[in-house]
């Protein structure tokens, strides 16, 4: 019904799409997989009317269509639900759903708000969600907002004669499992009304939801298959061109931690978040903290880096009692933090790689106090090589890097500052398989060199695979401790019992 034919697109000399052809049929869910930089995002944006292809064409029901703007796409029945939320937080839900489309409710220049909100309620009913459209969007949770975005895309139904195609761009990255299930249920229910194109890094999700799957690599389509006929490893192989190791988490590299204690907590509490947390962290150890949202693990992590100082108990770093009230104090004690929102919390995107890497420890001339730019560049080059960061130069701006490479720059920043305790907060979120594996390698490298790591991971699988020991938290308290030495790893079931 909707087809992309021999489309190519280049940006500043980089070929994002190269002769790509894709078909989307009526009432089907098409999955789109590929590593970062494979071209999925570009393809989605071409379908959404955000970009115009350099070559090739789009056809709808056999006839060519030219999408010069998102509005054109909307008129042709194509709507997109972005990965980074595209709702305006200062407007109400109803206003967001009909943003730009208020004309149908307007007479004599005045908007009839009652009719608009009634219509909004109808759209929300399609996704079976109970939200008052007069609610300010900023008051909703991520999951609720996702549903509103879906409702907004579905609202197109009434504006177009065409079949509806809804593009879902990584909708699950910020959702908890429970919400993901709900989303999938809705999508399946809505298949009668619309086709979906679903992009995700989580291959198991792709397989669960899609009817048909396209695999992209380096701007080309390298595979197309029915979802039922393939498996995750096969997809992985097509995406990266190599087999997924049984050694995904490099477990064979896990060595016993050293004797030396670098961080210790006794009775650590933050009022309203968690209490009575004890743990010991050794040199070279990877300590994982498992728990659902609300377990207190997020706040614990943030206490360790000085965002939220403890209200009770003690924390010791290298034997000294500390109470970290600002991150700079943590940094002075040799603690580094790799945040989950690297775009906003880890890097200054508008600055070059070299500058970001030295943010926490500027190479300063001892006599004049001036920053030594030459040394800075040298340091940057060293880390770029060591961490295999893909970039044309160390002067390139961080905002131009892919997610995985940005993550590495953040890591380099702390390694440059000689942090010996590193806190990883969801380090592989939003990264493709290849980039994830590189992060796992790095964690092993760091561990070998003696750095101690506190890891809050995306999945239980990751936690179990990477860590030496695991703390399980629930409702603000530690409910279990596991030893996850190589060869003696607990199972997910073991952990879950103490998490919920």
């Amino acid at each position, binding site marked *: 019904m909707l087809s992309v034919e021999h489309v190519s697109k280049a940006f500043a000399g980089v070929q994002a799409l190269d002769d790509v052809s894709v078909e989307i049929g009526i009432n089907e869910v098409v999955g789109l997989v590929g590593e970062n930089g494979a071209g999925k995002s570009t393809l989605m944006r071409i379908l959404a009317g*955000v970009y115009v292809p350099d070559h090739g064409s789009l056809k709808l029901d056999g006839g060519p269509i030219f999408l010069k*703007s*998102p*509005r054109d796409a*909307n008129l042709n029945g194509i709507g997109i639900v972005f990965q980074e939320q*595209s*709702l*305006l*937080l*200062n*407007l109400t839900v109803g*206003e967001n759903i009909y*943003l*730009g*489309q*208020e*004309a149908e409710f*307007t007479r004599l*220049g*005045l*908007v009839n*708000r009652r009719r608009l909100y009634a219509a909004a309620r109808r759209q929300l009913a399609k996704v079976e*969600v*109970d*939200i008052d459209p007069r*609610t300010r969007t900023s*008051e*909703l*949770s*991520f*999951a*609720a907002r996702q*549903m509103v975005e879906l409702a907004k895309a579905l609202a197109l139904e009434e504006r177009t004669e065409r079949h509806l195609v809804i593009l879902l761009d990584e909708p699950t990255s*910020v959702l908890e499992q*429970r*919400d993901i299930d*709900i989303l999938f249920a809705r999508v399946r229910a809505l298949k009668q009304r619309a086709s979906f194109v679903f992009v995700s890094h989580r291959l198991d999700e792709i397989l669960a939801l899609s009817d048909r799957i396209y695999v992209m690599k380096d701007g080309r389509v390298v595979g197309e298959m029915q979802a039922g006929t393939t498996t995750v490893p096969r997809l992985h192989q097509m995406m990266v061109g190599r087999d997924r190791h049984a050694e995904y988490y490099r477990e064979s590299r896990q060595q016993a931690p050293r004797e030396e204690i670098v961080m210790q907590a006794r009775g650590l509490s933050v009022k*309203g*978040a*968690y209490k009575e947390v004890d743990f010991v962290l050794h040199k070279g150890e990877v300590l994982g903290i498992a728990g659902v*949202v*609300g*377990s*207190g693990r*997020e*706040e614990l992590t943030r206490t360790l880096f000085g965002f939220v100082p403890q209200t009770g108990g003690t924390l010791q770093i290298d034997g000294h009692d500390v109470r970290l009230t600002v991150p700079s104090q943590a940094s002075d004690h040799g603690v580094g933090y790799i945040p989950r929102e690297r775009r906003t919390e880890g890097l200054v995107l508008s600055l070059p790689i070299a500058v970001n890497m030295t943010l926490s420890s500027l190479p300063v001339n001892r006599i004049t106090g001036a920053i030594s730019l030459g040394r800075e560049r040298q340091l940057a080059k060293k880390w770029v090589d060591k961490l295999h960061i893909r970039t044309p130069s160390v002067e390139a701006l961080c905002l131009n890097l892919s997610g995985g490479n940005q993550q590495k720059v953040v890591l380099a920043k702390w390694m440059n500052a000689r942090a010996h305790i590193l806190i990883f907060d969801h380090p592989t979120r939003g990264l493709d398989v290849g980039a994830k594996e590189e992060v796992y390698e790095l964690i092993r490298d760091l561990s070998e060199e003696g750095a101690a790591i506190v890891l809050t991971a995306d999945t239980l699988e990751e936690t179990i695979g990477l860590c030496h020991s695991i703390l399980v938290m629930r*409702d*603000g308290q530690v409910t279990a401790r596991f030893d996850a030495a190589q060869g003696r790893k607990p199972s997910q079931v073991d952990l879950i019992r103490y998490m919920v």
Partner: protein
Amino acid sequence: MEPQIGHPSADSGTSQIRSPERRDRNVKRSLGRLKPYAPFFALIALSLVIGTMNPRFFEFNNLIRVANSAAIPLVLALGMTFVIVLGSIDLSVEGVLAIGAVLISLLVRNNGNANDLGWFGVVLAILACGAIGCLNGVIHVGLRIPSFMVTLGMWFIGVGVATLLLGGSTVRVLDKEIRSLALDRPLGLFPIAVWVALGALGITWVIERRTRIGRYIYAIGGGEDLAALSGIPVQRVKIIVFTIAGTLYGLGGLLAAAQLGQGNALIGSGRLFSTVTAVVVGGTALTGGEGGVLNTLVGVMIMAVLGNGMVLLGISPDLQQGVQGILIIVAVALSLDRARLKIVK
């Protein structure tokens, strides 16, 4: 049982510890809902304090005087409000006001030339000011020059042209009808100027709440990229907003010329600061996307009440500037959602 997505659950980072803490949070949330009304409560509180210390504050004649002193600032601040909600800033108030007042003074019956165009002259002048606002918008949008710079330049150009037109001197307005805007009080109530300001308030309120343009202003202020992706004609909206602002400044020029009975290039001197202050004190955020004309009304009233009150209470001139400074800081501190701001610049 289907898990509910609908109800507002915690964002990532805040945990769901039960019982006493949850009750605490509910109280905080109710207080939070009152936050947008803080400027209004401040206005009431201020009025009560002043009125208690000098009951003459509540005299009918005084309330009229307060309203009168608020008329011009309100008209100017209404124009500025939309610009600020958009996320921009308009520094050209004083220049456009000057052009408006000077043009009106020269076109209606005056003591400098033989013109006597009456209301037609007024319309021409206000249209000219709207055109200047439009020019602000077009340069800002077309040449992609930040609004700060464009309007800064237009400020000086405005004052400069006003100076050129008058050769630096002042011209007196002799047209009785124009003057009646300030001097006549229909039904013994407010001077016509106050009604004009209220009319402007009504119109801008309708624009803000009931028109698409009003909605788009907030959308752009809340997230320009997202707004553009939703098909909103961002450029057109911006130009319209600046044009509205220019028109309102021109209207302010009319009221100023009527009030002082003259036009000169410096008639707007000092108004930029008081206009922006009134908008901010009323609760409209400089970052855009929040606030509105009713907020601005409250802000303007606070400034007018304070000005009147300080004289009624005989506060020493030395202290008055300090008081105004404290006012600004307190007002902004109360209205900002500081819990949400991790970074404060």
